[in-house]
């Protein structure tokens, strides 16, 4: 029988949990509670007082066409950038896993992008994608007006998706590679001896075996695309042109900090939180069923 340390009184157990509970309370529940309170009031920015307005903040936000636009752009951004970042990372990881020449070098190099802070990489991409001075200036020379993120919303959206995906390819790559390397070599070798090709081995052996990792990365990528996109949007497009890249997280910042509308921003962040929670529940409920844990 397993030996277990037990405490006679539950208070001791609680006592051990207290440091952790204090941390969670101070850095999560307290601010979140404050945000809920603010979202139900109208706060004067200088702290001169507030008025209880109930759900009025939520009502006015949800009646605002700009806000719905912001939800749509966030979902588009999350969908495309997650798909792009995960597909590219999976392809690169599979190729690296095959021990092709130079794969040790790729393994190190491909991880770097994740180590770059979002504003720094946004600045780099802003230069690269600048229609008059950057790399895209060449394209514009041949097809004038082809690339114009300053006025064309689709171009601007493409720029931030590209920058975000580039960063997360590195992150996803580490996990995919680790998952692929955890698959016993003997399985793959046996399949190879049975005469299955690279693609077949990937489809029937590797892919099913790494579904837990794929699922984990899907959750993380979608969540991060809602939150970590702020620095990239702020530097590259500032939400423009004409709100085409005004993601939810950026709108919270600009309404709250630039517009000093703390209550409206608090209400928006509650909605964002609920949306992420809902998306995560959906993923666990419907996609996790197809995941095979070993």
């Amino acid at each position, binding site marked *: 029988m397993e030996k277990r340390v037990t405490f006679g009184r539950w208070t001791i157990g609680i006592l051990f949990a207290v440091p952790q509970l204090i941390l969670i309370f101070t850095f999560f529940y307290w601010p979140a509670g404050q945000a809920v309170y603010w979202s139900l009031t*109208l*706060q*004067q*920015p*200088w*702290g*001169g007082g507030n*008025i209880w*307005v109930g759900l009025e903040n939520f009502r*006015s936000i949800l009646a*605002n066409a*700009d806000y719905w636009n912001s939800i749509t752009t966030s979902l588009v951004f999350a969908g495309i950038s997650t798909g792009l970042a995960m597909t590219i990372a999976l392809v690169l990881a599979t190729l690296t896993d095959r021990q092709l020449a130079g794969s040790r070098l790729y393994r190190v190099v491909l991880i770097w992008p994740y180590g770059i802070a979002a504003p720094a990489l946004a600045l780099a991409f*802003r230069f690269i994608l*600048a*229609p*008059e*001075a*950057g790399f895209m*200036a060449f394209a514009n020379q041949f097809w004038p007006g082809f690339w*114009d*993120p*300053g*006025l*064309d*919303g689709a171009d601007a959206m493409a720029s931030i998706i590209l920058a975000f995906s580039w960063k997360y390819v590195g992150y996803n790559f580490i996990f995919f590679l680790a998952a692929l390397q955890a698959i016993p070599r003997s399985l793959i070798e046996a399949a190879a001896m049975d005469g299955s090709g690279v693609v077949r081995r990937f489809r029937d052996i590797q892919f099913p075996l790494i579904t837990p990792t794929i699922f984990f990365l899907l959750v993380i990528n979608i969540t991060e695309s809602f939150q970590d996109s702020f620095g990239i949007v702020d530097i*590259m*497009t*500032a939400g*423009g*042109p*004409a*709100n085409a890249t005004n993601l939810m997280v950026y709108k919270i910042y*600009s*309404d709250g*900090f*630039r*517009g*000093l*509308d703390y*209550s*409206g921003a608090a209400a928006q962040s509650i909605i964002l939180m609920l949306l992420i929670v809902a998306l995560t529940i959906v993923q666990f409920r419907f996609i996790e069923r197809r995941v095979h844990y070993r």
Partner: protein
Amino acid sequence: MTIIKRGLTALAAGALGTALAVPAFAEPVKFDFWFGLSGDLARVVDTLCKNFNASQSDYQVVCTSQGNYDATLQNTIAAFRAGKQPTVVQVYDVGTATMMLSGAYKPADKLMEENGYKIDYSDYFPGIARYYATSKGEMLSFPFNSSTALMYWNKDAFAKIGKTEAPKTWEDVGADLKALKDAGYDCPMAINISANESWQLMEQFSAIHNQPIATKNNGYDGLDARLEMNKTKFVQYVTDLKKWYDDGLIKIKSKDLGQDMVQAFATGTCQVIMTSVGDHGTVGKTKKEGMSWDVAELPVYAGTERKNSLVGGASLWVLSGKSDAEYKGAAAFLNFIHDPKTALFWSTNTGYIPVTKSGFEYMKANGFYDKAPYKGREVAIESLTASEPTEITRGIRLGNFTQIRAEFGTQMQAIFANKESVQDGVDALVKNGDAILDRFQQTYPNKTLP
């Protein structure tokens, strides 16, 4: 017992005496000043602070840059809520309404009076003073760095089309841009249409043409003011700009696209821009070798009686909740900044204009405006003093104006990308801007602007 007690009391009294006496001739009173300028300008502010500290020994100002205007206001609010606010803070022009309702300041005029400084408020250029004063004319803050918008034009390019003077009307501008295009200039004029350009494209334009931006005299007379630029000459102006853009006479230049408009002008790529007089120094320093250029007042539509342009920049607010000693120091600091000699130092080292008539006269007497690189900056004063400020050209006093500017950028981008017509775009600006004003008014129930 009693002897010991008495001895101890005496000792304590003695210690207390020295403790009180020592600081009087050693430690100066320190107070904080937060400002929003960065880079070169921040270094000039630091020098200004050093000069103040060297000029007397009673007070010491600690100057800290917060990076930019937005951050300065945000950080100050956060600090104020935590009770750690600076004594003096620089707040940008459009933050004035927010500050006035904050209840977090000590009125500048009262502060100076209490501390025995006599400031002649009529010495301020009326266009500058009225922007920051209450509707009754009291100065709650001190104008600090001030500028206005000017038109920069390339003399070489205009010489090619036979012009030796800058266009004075928008009708002339249209003809000149066409001529420049025909003469082979790819970019006759550059503009940008982000939130910041609301300043020259909407606010300055409306003031010069005596057109309101909002009801209630641009908000000076109450928080229930609402936008109305969809019914003024501004619509015509945007229509013209859009048409010139479609005809290739105007190019959009911004940092995100590769080159901002000041760079585009300085390198000779674009021949006309409208920007702050604060860029005068930058153009002078970075212009293409041998390029000859000048500045002029912003044009008006033919038949318009020109009014004063608006001041842009920031003013200095003294916050509440500080000690008397710190207030004394703040008063001394503001008095130092008010001095004409400081005005000369400030304007020489930055592109900003003097805010007082005495400062301007002092600089003129010193020959500041006579030769390059400072020649031309007097045009800014002419523009600001083109007329006595009217009820509308005093300024703009609207809550959360930063967000209205953002909305301006959004709608202009939609108009220029052909997503909506000019009238629809400006109507949307009014509608969304009014929602912002509604919210501001709801946040401050039962309060009125001073």
